[in-house]
């Protein structure tokens, strides 16, 4: 093997009292894809931010690039050392165009004036390689989460680095885009780049990873070479125990009581918003888990927003238990028994400056309140504590602010809020985005239990194995319309290929 391009030795990092990293070592060689694994809050992002210059490590830490000790001061230092990074938390300026974001901090200027056209022209090919369907001049604010993720990737690729860090780059991507990205990553590997890849999706790690380093609670557990990479090994190293059955699906709407089977709880009839969503109908029955699949930008999130009244309906209506209802605001949706988990937890979900306790209790405060408005603080505390242990949320205390949690733990806090409502209908938009394997299986079993107890669940997900693993039925969207529906029968499961065919509109798939 050649000389390592990157060596991190005894790297530690503390955020005042929390020790996020303790003497972690990491060795990366050129021309390899190095997967960094660990549970939520294990310290993966922190380690990468130290490398990129966003954080400064504690004294005693040592970083060598190409054998030489370097001190990385600030993001500019990271860039100078040949490091490019895709941050886990999107870091784009929404008010700027795609091209401006990609060039941010490295703008091209001619005789003092900005060379906007040249920048846009240079960005075009990269976007094309990624299969992005938007122009370089588009405002980032008008892009969906998935599209924004592509912009982040384009930015990192454009930086032409020696070491490329990708911190969960596919969380907002669906299968098609992800595949395209993997092709690119392999190309870059062939060009001799070192790639550090963080993901909670196991299949990606098998497919891509040349070596794996596993962290737990801020410490190094160990590193594995290609032949040793096996699901159970990695999971055991990460979690410290075996996670046996990963996808859990014990509920069965076809077998459970007949009465419930026929109960159509949610029906969306011909919903359209005059823009992206062009007349979509779907139904969800009691005790059923329905998946909503599609490519990025297919309009799944918009459809969910229409159902819960977060966006304006232009035509169509929603029925609950067979009766048409008018839902104009998310508040009315809650009153009608529909709870919605947003895909954009930072912008639309969490209150980062509020405590986890308040975040978890927010939707049920009114229900719990005494004398028509006085907070019941005991109930709130108990509920938060229960949620912490039920979902294994890793935080010092229920009173810490949600903003200080790692991405996956934030997701769990948000999910706890919805579960507290005990709704009739639950719409989950990318429920396991950024969640580690252990927690994922917890979430799957929660979904399963809810279905067993008669809740109607609609899961929007770009993670096809997940959809296949937990859903009874899949509705596939393509460009704002329902492209088709696949039902799981005892005899035949729907396959990844079937779903992709519907999502892309390409019938024949060459293997």
């Amino acid at each position: 093997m050649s000389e390592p391009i990157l060596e991190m030795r005894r790297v530690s990092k503390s955020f005042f009292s929390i020790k996020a990293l303790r003497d972690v070592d990491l060795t990366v060689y050129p021309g390899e894809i190095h997967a960094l694994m660990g549970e939520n809050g294990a310290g993966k992002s922190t380690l990468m931010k130290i490398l990129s210059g966003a954080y400064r490590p504690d004294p005693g830490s040592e970083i060598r690039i190409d054998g030489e000790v370097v001190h990385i001061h600030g993001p500019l230092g990271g860039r100078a050392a040949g490091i490019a990074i895709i941050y886990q938390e999107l870091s784009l300026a929404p008010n700027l165009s795609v091209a401006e974001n990609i060039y941010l901090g490295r703008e091209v200027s001619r005789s003092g004036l900005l060379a906007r056209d040249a920048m846009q022209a240079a960005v075009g090919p990269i976007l094309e390689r990624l299969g992005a369907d938007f122009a370089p001049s588009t405002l980032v604010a008008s892009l969906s989460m998935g599209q924004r993720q592509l912009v982040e990737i384009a930015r990192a690729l454009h930086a032409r680095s020696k070491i490329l860090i990708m911190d969960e780059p596919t969380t907002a991507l669906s299968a098609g885009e992800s595949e395209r990205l993997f092709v690119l990553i392999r190309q870059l590997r062939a060009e001799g780049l070192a790639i550090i890849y963080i993901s909670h999706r196991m299949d990606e790690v098998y497919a891509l990873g040349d070596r794996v380093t596993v962290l737990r609670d801020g410490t190094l557990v160990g590193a594995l070479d290609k032949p040793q990479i096996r699901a159970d090994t990695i999971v055991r190293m990460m979690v410290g125990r075996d996670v046996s059955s990963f996808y859990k699906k014990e509920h069965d709407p076809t077998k459970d009581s007949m009465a419930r089977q026929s109960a159509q709880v949610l029906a969306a009839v011909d919903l359209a918003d005059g823009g992206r969503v062009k007349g979509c109908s779907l139904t969800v029955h009691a005790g059923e888990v329905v998946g909503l699949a599609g490519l990025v930008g297919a309009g799944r999130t918009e459809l969910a927003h229409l159902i819960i009244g977060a966006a304006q309906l232009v035509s169509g209506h929603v029925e609950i238990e067979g009766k048409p209802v008018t839902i104009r605001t998310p508040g009315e949706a809650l009153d009608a028994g529909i709870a919605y988990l947003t895909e954009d937890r930072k912008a639309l979900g969490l209150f980062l400056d509020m405590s986890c306790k308040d975040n978890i209790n927010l939707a049920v405060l009114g229900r719990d309140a005494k004398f028509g408005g006085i907070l019941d603080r005991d109930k709130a505390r108990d509920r938060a504590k229960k949620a912490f242990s039920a979902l294994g949320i890793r935080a010092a205390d229920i009173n810490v602010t949600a903003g200080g949690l790692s991405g996956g733990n934030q997701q769990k806090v948000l999910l706890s809020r919805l579960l507290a409502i005990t709704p009739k209908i639950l719409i989950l938009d990318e429920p396991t985005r950024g969640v580690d394997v252990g927690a994922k299986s917890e979430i799957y079993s929660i979904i399963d239990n809810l279905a067993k107890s008669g809740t109607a669940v609609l899961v929007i997900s770009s993670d096809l194995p997940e959809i296949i693993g937990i859903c009874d039925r899949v509705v596939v969207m393509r460009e704002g319309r329902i492209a088709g529906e696949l039902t799981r029968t005892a005899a035949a499961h729907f396959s990844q290929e079937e779903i992709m065919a519907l999502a892309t509109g390409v019938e024949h798939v060459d293997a």
Partner: protein
Amino acid sequence: MPENGAAAKAATAPALAAAQETRRQRTRTFIRAVGMLPVLLLLCLGFHFLSEGRFFTGQNLGIVVQQSAVNTVLAAGMTFVILTGGIDLSVGSILAASAMAGLIISQFPDLGPLWLPAAVLTGAVFGVLNGGLIALLRLPPFIVTLGSLTAVRGVARLLGADTTVFNPSIPYAFIGNGSLTLIPGLLTIPWLWVIAVLVILVSWLVLKRTVLGVHIYAVGGNESAARLAGIKVWAVLIFVYAVSGLLAGLGGAMQAARLYAANGLQLGQSYELDAITAVILGGTSFVGGIGSIWGTLVGALIIAVLSNGLILIGVSDVWQYVIKGLVIIGAVALDRYRLQGSART
């Protein structure tokens, strides 16, 4: 395999760390809530020393708290507004209009005693108008309340036909100049200050102990998330501007009772700046979602102590400007420095 050992080891360490963290966080919350208290004490001591012992006398302390009372009440309302990420520039004008309305009513022999609720109500009505425009038409708070800063000032002047309205025998005048005797001959508290403290207490109760309070913080912390979580954002917004208006009305009543008079032009000019300063000095964040009402009280006291102390030690008017400005900047700088030492970077 090392997992089990590590897990066992990891289990105790986080538990310990968690306990430590909780304690530390509590300290931090406390420091934040206490906010500028050290700065306030420092100022008081400084003035006491420089004024040759005139500061800490019963009479002077009475004057300071009395002077801070109206601003405290306005700043309490402003805290609600700023917690939602908004701003209310119109409080000074609403105060003037409410005082005018109150005094005019007080001159009718039959309606006399109603002047106080009338003043408060006037303020609330203007507040609801502000809130309605902001919440329902989704206009920017700065522009709406700047518009009403101007328009309501005009209304205040129109009410009295641009003259001073005067009523030496206004009912409830005691709230303006009287004191509540707690220990006869020893401890009396100006009624104005009693009102201000009550306002702070009720505000604290609403903000920290009710569902509405959590919703106010939520709207300020992340408005779109609040909307998705089913909170009636418009209702929360109307509420906070109504509270701000109502408290400005109360401030107008307090000012009227204190002066026995009101003038549409000369009352409440640029009070909004003092109120906002008190809130921000108190550690409430401009973006919304972060802050406490106790900080506001301390902020209002700092402003009053500064005005009183500088006169007490005989600083000339011009230098008062310079010093006041520098102390305000110095206070937040000190605060920033202090927080940095104790908590996050």
